[in-house]
């Protein structure tokens, strides 16, 4: 990779990222579905940014757009100071990788573990002979805690947790600096989730890789992240340090999200007063005017309907997009 002069302290800089999907509404008629509508954030090397939100809020789309699995409608993404475009994405794929949500559909059932983990090596030609390829694969399997004897087995013979480890090994094969983790533990059993979360943390310590950790489980995100961004209908409504966000949430959506999380503790659960949000998330095809959250917000005023608030710093990098709080 060419050394750039404009090297910044951030590994990942996303600025006003927009991703609209055309949706057919009739014959030859399409309207844009604004899955991601002006998202900006930064990630430092070796840092974890958690991205939480409900289904359909666009968090997965953000991850996939960063890796150019979709071509963004607008905005820019700088990786290591370098603007990512269609042209330079192929070499950059060696530094950015992705771990997927579903450990069942993210591994090709007709390939052996060895071939799955070896595929990035094949694509980028990262070995000189078969022996080196095999050695690298076995090293990766060991790194994620897989038994090397199982290299020739097919993915369907493994349990969910082991499959997710295979997926992580595949992402690590190219020795990336940044991994987008798209709900990597939500499909796993409770008793396995902790194993995988721990592994993500250990790998970060060992390899210094940065994560964009996408999830809907606030407790998991809080545990693994340095900072957390909360998304609602294609926009980031609040972004802050993990503890700060948990202890002093400001945006009404973050508040209700936090209070809706079922706490595995009966006494706390009995005591706590939940803020139950009324109604459903509006369809992203019929977005409310102004602030997207105003239809479910108790504090909504006229200003909210007219103008969409942008993120403002409330001290110490705690950014909130709300008129009233």
């Amino acid at each position: 990779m060419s050394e750039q002069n404009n090297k910044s302290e951030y590994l990942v800089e996303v600025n006003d990222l927009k991703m609209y999907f055309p949706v057919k509404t009739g014959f030859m008629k399409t309207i844009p579905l604004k899955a991601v509508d002006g998202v900006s954030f930064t990630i430092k090397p070796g840092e974890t940014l958690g991205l939480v939100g409900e289904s359909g809020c666009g968090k997965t789309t953000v991850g996939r757009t960063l890796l150019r699995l979709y071509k963004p409608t607008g905005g820019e993404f700088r990786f290591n100071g370098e603007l990512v475009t269609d042209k330079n994405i192929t070499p950059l794929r060696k530094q950015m990788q992705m771990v997927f949500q579903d450990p069942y559909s993210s591994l090709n059932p007709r390939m052996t573990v060895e071939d799955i983990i070896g595929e990035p090596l094949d694509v980028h030609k990262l070995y000189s002979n078969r022996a080196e390829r095999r050695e690298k694969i076995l090293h990766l399997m060991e790194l994620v805690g897989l038994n090397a004897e199982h290299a020739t087995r097919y993915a369907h013979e493994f349990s969910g947790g082991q499959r997710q480890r295979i997926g992580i090994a595949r992402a690590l094969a190219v020795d990336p600096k940044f991994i987008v983790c798209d709900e990597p533990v939500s499909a796993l059993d409770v008793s396995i989730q902790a194993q995988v979360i721990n592994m993500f943390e250990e790998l970060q310590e060992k390899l210094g890789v940065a994560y964009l950790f996408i999830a809907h489980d606030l407790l998991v995100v809080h545990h693994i992240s340095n900072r957390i961004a909360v998304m609602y209908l294609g926009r980031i409504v609040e972004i802050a340090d993990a503890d700060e966000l948990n202890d002093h949430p400001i945006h009404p959506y973050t508040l209700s999200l936090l209070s809706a999380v079922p706490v595995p503790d009966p006494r706390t659960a009995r005591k706590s007063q939940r803020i139950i949000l009324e109604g459903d998330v509006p369809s992203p095809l019929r977005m409310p005017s102004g602030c997207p959250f105003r239809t479910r917000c108790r504090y909504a005023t006229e200003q909210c309907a007219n103008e969409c608030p942008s993120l403002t710093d409330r001290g110490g990098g705690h950014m909130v997009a709300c008129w009233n709080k």
Partner: protein
Amino acid sequence: MAQNFDIPAPTKNPMSLQLDPKKFEKATDEEKRQQDVMAESTTFFKDGMRRLMRNPLAIISIVLLLLVVATMVIAPAVVPYSYEQIITVNGKRDKRAANLKPFEYSQLEQQYMEETGEKLFPHIMGTDELCRDYFIRVVYGTRVSFIVGIFAALMVMIIGIIYGSISGYLGGKVDLIMMRIVDIIYSLPDLLIVILLAVVLKETLSQAKLGIFSKLGTNMMAMFIVFGVLYWVGMARLVRGQILTIKENEYVLAAKSIGAKNGRIIRRHILPNCISVIIISTAQQIPSAIFTESYLSFIGLGVQLPMPSLGSLANAARSGMQSYPWKLVFPAVMIVLIVLAMNLLGDAMRDAFDPKLKK
């Protein structure tokens, strides 16, 4: 609250058991690992084969088809008659050996056997009106039907895979246009096209050198072309549908995020995952091709005489149906057996290999 749990569990009071304190020592990791062995490694193919072999209908079909194939291969070498020759006894053509019943000998043959004491090979299915051994004709007819069926199915498969995978993978406008072409071909009446092509191709093909295919005749070649031109559309649609679903799988996205090129994704990720569906559908295509061949031959558009096919044999037998019913029965039974066995096998393969039906 706790009172609801007051029913004792069905297990015995543990204190009444004779327990050895040694058993309460900590278990070693080794001992624990023995409990936690991974199941025997099976590939998808092995697993499917195991299920296929458990299906009695599949076994019967396979045995039946093997018998038919064996007969097709061995019979011409064993039976001393040829499909196009009048029965010849001692160098003399036996003109009175027409329309013999199964296992019946003509007068000339009986005479010869009495004279020499040599036993002649029996006419297992009798003879036809031109004094040819019927059994060998049915065997050759089966051969033709088989070859047509398999070739047609293969042709359909190859064209269908290429067309379908391009259309399905690229999607968008390309897919739209390619699928409209498929729709147009679907709407053509196939029988009409066969007849038209047969007539047109007869002229053009008769001048061309056809090599081994020349024996099959221009009608047959026309039929291949028709299969190639018309019947791949079903396969193309199937492959496209498969690819559209497989394309949505996260492992395809994963391959893209790694940086794999389209060709690699189709080859390594998409085709291997729809190959079972393709093979099953091809297996199911064979009997339908045989059937088509038979009815085309029956209406006189099939293979060229004197080469028999099951359909043309049945057609020829139609005239003497009341006097010599077996001449119709033998080729008809053969068609039914082959088509039934292939259909059953195709269904059994679908049940065994289609992951959607897999629990």
